[in-house]
């Protein structure tokens, strides 16, 4: 179930099939964890290599890391504000880097060459579990940020500027993680599917522009996710007057 043999007669195109691992009585998607470990490994390698010997005159990988750091700081500072952005920068940065490397890894690495008993390797962000996990972390973060910064006054936000806003703001708490997770999931999965379908239909030339588009989408999605996460946190810690 989940393969589309009647539309595309290719056994390799599998959607919604997973490589299940059994942990006690928990079932997890093995292919998601495998690629996520590769992504995390790549990130940690880059970071460890780049920070091994840091100097005041940066050279080599340190330049890249400083560029990324600066980029993430600007993102966090503009969205969250000068006062508390430092506390949230690691979280925003981790979201951005993890999603970005996941997306690009899914788009650039020819995972299909590795055959699994079931399912196939791909970007971890093309699995709904990953994106919902990230989105729920964002929800928890902005609640925590609001409560830890303003205490119970955080809930003033729900009746700001008028109590009429209350139901909308409550609905927002549910739509925020929903839209975050589905946007990322849908974009990445759709991109992978489009590329896969095109590769099977026209294996030459035609998929290349779509692949480039996919790289663009991947980067944009990572930026959008991180920016929105920062914006939600910023909204929660903002002082109303």
């Amino acid at each position, binding site marked *: 179930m989940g393969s589309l043999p009647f539309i595309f007669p290719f056994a390799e195109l599998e959607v919604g099939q997973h490589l299940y691992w059994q942990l006690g009585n928990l079932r997890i998607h093995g292919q998601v964890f495998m690629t996520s470990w590769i992504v995390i490994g790549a990130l940690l390698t880059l970071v460890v290599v780049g920070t091994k010997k840091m100097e005041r005159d940066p050279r080599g990988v340190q330049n890249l890391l400083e560029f990324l750091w600066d980029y993430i700081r600007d993102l966090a500072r503009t969205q969250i504000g000068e006062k508390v952005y430092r506390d949230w920068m690691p979280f925003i940065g981790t979201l951005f880097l993890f999603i970005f490397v996941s997306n690009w890894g899914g788009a650039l690495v020819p995972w299909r060459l590795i055959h699994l008993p079931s399912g196939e390797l791909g970007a971890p962000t093309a699995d709904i*579990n990953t994106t919902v*996990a990230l989105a729920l972390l964002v929800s928890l973060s902005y609640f925590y940020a609001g409560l830890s910064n303003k205490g119970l006054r955080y809930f003033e936000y729900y009746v700001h500027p008028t109590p009429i806003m209350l139901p909308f703001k409550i609905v927002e708490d549910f739509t925020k993680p929903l839209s975050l997770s589905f946007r990322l999931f849908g974009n990445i999965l759709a991109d992978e599917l489009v590329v896969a379908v095109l590769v099977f239909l026209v294996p030459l030339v035609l998929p290349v522009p779509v692949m480039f588009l996919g790289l663009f989408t991947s980067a944009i999605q990572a930026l959008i996710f991180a920016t929105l996460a920062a914006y939600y946190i910023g909204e929660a810690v903002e002082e109303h007057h």
Partner: protein
Amino acid sequence: MTSFFLFGAEGGLFDFDATLPLMAVQVVILTFILNTLFFKPVGQVVEEREDYVTVSRSEAKQKLAEAERLEADLRGQLKDARLAAQKVITEAEQDSDKLYREALALANSEANSSREEARREIDAQRDSALNQLKADSEKLGDLIVERLLAVQ
């Protein structure tokens, strides 16, 4: 295909299971690891450099201001010195002029007085010579008169 989009079914796109919480835990752990390995050290280096640049720039500005102050100071000193030199030169010129005039006046007056004395002496000698001559001529006249009278 019917269960393709269904929740809770075996497989499918929306197959939620323990992947979700475990992935969340994994990302939280990754956040802490990246904070220690990446955000803190790189932030430290970048901020140290920013501080260094700020401090260096303000020091340079201070030094520049100091240099400009010293330059203005020296310019002032130079100006004062020029004025002082001018004044000294003028004074010296006036002094020497005065000395010259004094010396000239002295020399003039000395010359005048010695000339006066000389003239007085000449007058005195001439007078005495005239007197002598007068006396002599009178004596000679008397003598001539005596002799002539005696001969007769």
